[in-house]
């Protein structure tokens, strides 16, 4: 544990206890005064990303002991990690995020976890998305409930878009959201569409879904919404981006190809003046049980594709990037030690990234628990010291101006002890 890390954490934590209410009002007032329209992108990394590989604690002596030949080298060494704050490094595949950190546009959170303490991907993702402490406790997601509370959140086009054919749990709920994915098929003629709309009039689900889809298509078709090559047919559904293993794909798209397309679509929606403010997409393939690799290898390739996509997102958003916050989260971490098959099994705490022009970045926020065997959770995993909901609340409150009362009452019920982190977003 570096004392500096703990101080940094406490400082931010102190803001959180004192300044929560004021910050929210300030953020809202600021947005109203400057006409700034915040944009928020949530990226769900499904499969449990190894936080100790993405953000190696190079300053912790336990790290090399646990990871052995798979430990990333310290910044400055050949194939070493990218420098963060001297204690933590960044995986060398994450070049764009490294630059973002240097430009003070990235906050790295570590030893963070949702309230979920078992090791099932599927329950872990459910808790990550439903915003409660229990799997399957809610049919709606925290981001949707937050959107329903956002200032002006009732307006349809103000809500959010899920990039993909379907809407992930985190975006399901009372607020109107839509989903969008590129289509190879030709659109319907107006007459057929009118008749189908008619046919769906008495069907509460299909009528809403069809209207949402048509709205998303209109937004996507507006001038400047999509980069020219968005018209090109996709290789695969965006939700499957990043799944393909190098050398083995059944119908090989370039890894990151479909993902890059998803990212460009997200940017296309967000840079619209009156389009959705929130976009969500997911990537998979982080479940590295065997042959995970280190500076190079399986995980390195996936991280590089992820990083490249974020760089694309920044480029495509253009001037809107300065009003954007992108949050990357995963359901849980992986074992602190390498397992018997040169990979890692399901664990507990991990890292999260908050990047973007709106982010008060250039910091690692971590109350580092240490890696010696008595410091590990159940003797095997990184111990959580930060509730992910503190991060989520901080971003929702400062960036999207969600009232603290709504965060406590409906967005994250029964989460009083997880106080919003303040100061994550630039004033």
């Amino acid at each position, binding site marked *: 544990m570096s004392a500096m890390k703990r101080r940094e954490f406490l400082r931010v934590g102190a803001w959180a206890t004192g300044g929560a209410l004021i910050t929210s009002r300030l953020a809202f007032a600021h947005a109203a005064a400057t006409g700034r329209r915040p944009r928020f992108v949530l990226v769900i990394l499904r499969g449990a990303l190894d936080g100790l590989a993405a953000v190696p604690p190079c300053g912790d002596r336990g790290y090399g002991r646990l990871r052995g*030949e798979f430990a990333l080298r310290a910044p400055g060494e050949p194939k070493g990690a990218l420098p963060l704050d001297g204690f933590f490094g960044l995986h060398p595949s994450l070049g764009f995020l490294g630059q973002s950190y240097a430009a003070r546009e990235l906050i790295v959170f570590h030893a963070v976890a949702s309230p979920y303490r078992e090791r099932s991907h599927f329950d872990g993702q459910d808790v990550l998305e439903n915003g409660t402490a229990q799997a399957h406790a809610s049919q709606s997601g925290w981001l949707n409930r937050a959107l329903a509370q956002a200032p002006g959140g009732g307006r349809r086009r103000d809500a959010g878009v899920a990039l993909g054919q*379907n809407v992930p749990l985190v975006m399901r709920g009372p607020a109107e959201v839509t989903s969008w994915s590129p289509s190879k098929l*030709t659109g319907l003629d107006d007459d057929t569409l009118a008749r189908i709309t008619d046919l769906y009039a008495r069907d509460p689900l299909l009528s809403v879904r069809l209207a949402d889809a048509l709205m998303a298509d209109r937004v996507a078709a507006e001038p400047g919404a999509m980069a020219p090559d968005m018209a090109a047919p996709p290789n695969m559904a965006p939700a499957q981006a990043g799944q393909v293993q190098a050398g083995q794909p*059944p119908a090989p798209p370039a890894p990151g190809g479909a993902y890059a397309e998803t990212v460009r679509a997200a940017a296309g929606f967000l840079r619209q003046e009156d389009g959705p403010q929130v976009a969500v997409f997911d990537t998979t393939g982080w479940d590295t049980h065997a042959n995970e690799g280190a500076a190079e290898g399986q995980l390195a390739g996936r991280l590089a594709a992820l990083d490249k996509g974020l760089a694309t997102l920044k480029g495509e958003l253009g001037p809107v990037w300065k009003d954007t916050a992108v949050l990357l989260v995963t359901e849980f971490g992986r074992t602190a030690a390498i*397992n018997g098959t040169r990979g890692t*099994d399901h664990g507990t705490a991990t890292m999260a990234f908050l990047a973007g022009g709106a982010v008060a970045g250039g910091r690692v926020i971590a109350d580092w628990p240490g890696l010696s065997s008595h410091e590990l959770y159940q003797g095997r995993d990184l111990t959580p010291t930060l509730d992910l909901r503190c991060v989520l609340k901080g971003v929702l409150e400062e960036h999207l101006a969600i009232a603290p009362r709504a965060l406590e009452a409906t967005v994250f019920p029964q989460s009083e002890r997880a106080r919003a982190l303040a100061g994550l977003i630039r004033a």
Partner: protein
Amino acid sequence: MQQLGSTIAANRFGLGARPGELASIGGDGRDWLRAQLERAPPAIAGAQLASSAQTLGEALALQREVQQARRSGNDLQQRLPQFLKPIYQSEATARFEQAVMTGRPFIERITQFWTNHFAVSIDKQFMAGLAGSFEREAIRPRVLGNFGDLLLAAEMHPAMLLYLDNHLSVGPHSPTAIRAGLRRRGDNRPPGINENLGREILELHTLGAGGGYTQYDVTSFATVITGWSVGGGNGLWASGPPGRFVFRPDQHEPGIKTVLGRRYGDKGYEQGVEVLNDLAQHPSTARHIATKLARHFIADDPPPAAVERLARAFTEFGGNLPSVYRALIDTPEAWEQPLAKYKTPNDFIVSSYRGLSLPVDASHAPLAPFELLGQRTWQPGSPAGWPDTSADWDGASALLKRVEWADAVGGRLGSRRDAADLAPQLLGATLTGATGTAIARAASAQQALTLLLAAPEFMRR
């Protein structure tokens, strides 16, 4: 007017009515379903499909060639996908055709249910070549047998062992690990266990999350199945018949082990079989399977009484699956809410092909609809399989794609099909006046077909 029973039987329990099917079912549909359970499950008809051992044996040999070529500077990287992709396409096409043509669609749906329960996904190495043979070899022949046999066959199949990394899992006190420890230099780690398969068997295949197991059980069970491997690979899994199950005593963790509080003697391979047998009969497994079946066949939020009835049948008949299916057929809730289930893309495509008597034409990209509508066969992307509730599939973009695809299908057929004639034959008692009127008033035969496939009652089962 068709009876509601035959409509539900054909569309919810089956894969969508073919023209004339509702009339031939007759009665309330229950006898038609029970009769399908009588004979052995049908094999995939007519297709020349290779065994998993043959495919995997060739794939492993090819992989060695690729690696050797790389050492001498040649890039043959694409050879393996080029070998596997046609296998995937033939397998998935054969499965699709069987689903479209079968007269026992209940058995076909059950088969797809179990393959999804024991999911492998083609985005992992070799799975594109193995997913089809996994279904044909491990699942299909046992869907009318005993759950314990189905479980054992699925976990021992090379596809499952490779998909969940068990072929690399080595007991920390096994002869292999001890030898590696003696040779150890520097930071090189001795091989050890990989929890992946052990965890997913407990969480997904048997007890279910919350089914009463702990991390200790996961780790302990993972050591029980160390040595369950495949032959013909490289390094740890080199020896043995290529592409087939191999038990490797040298990699098996020796000793007595405890799983779920019960001790299992040091019997090598048999130790794993004993644990699996006990898992197959565990009350949590009965409840887990009952819940999934009820969610698939009754409603997204299955009625507790129905789950209870199925779990009781599962336990009472010792995991005999036809008895569980008969209990399902006898469950009143399965017949009370028509159209309670939103079709998956797979359901939607297969029922469209059945309803419109479309040929599965192997020469015309037969699998394209699955990709377009977001459910590529055998690619759920995770061992949990495809999700099974409306919210997972009813996205706005997904709906628009179905409607656009329906329109393309209508355009291809034009006046070669009569939607007004087909609507009552496909939708039976669930056909609404609104849909009937819309089809009757359509501007063209194409538009009428589009409206038939896009109708709210065709989107559901």
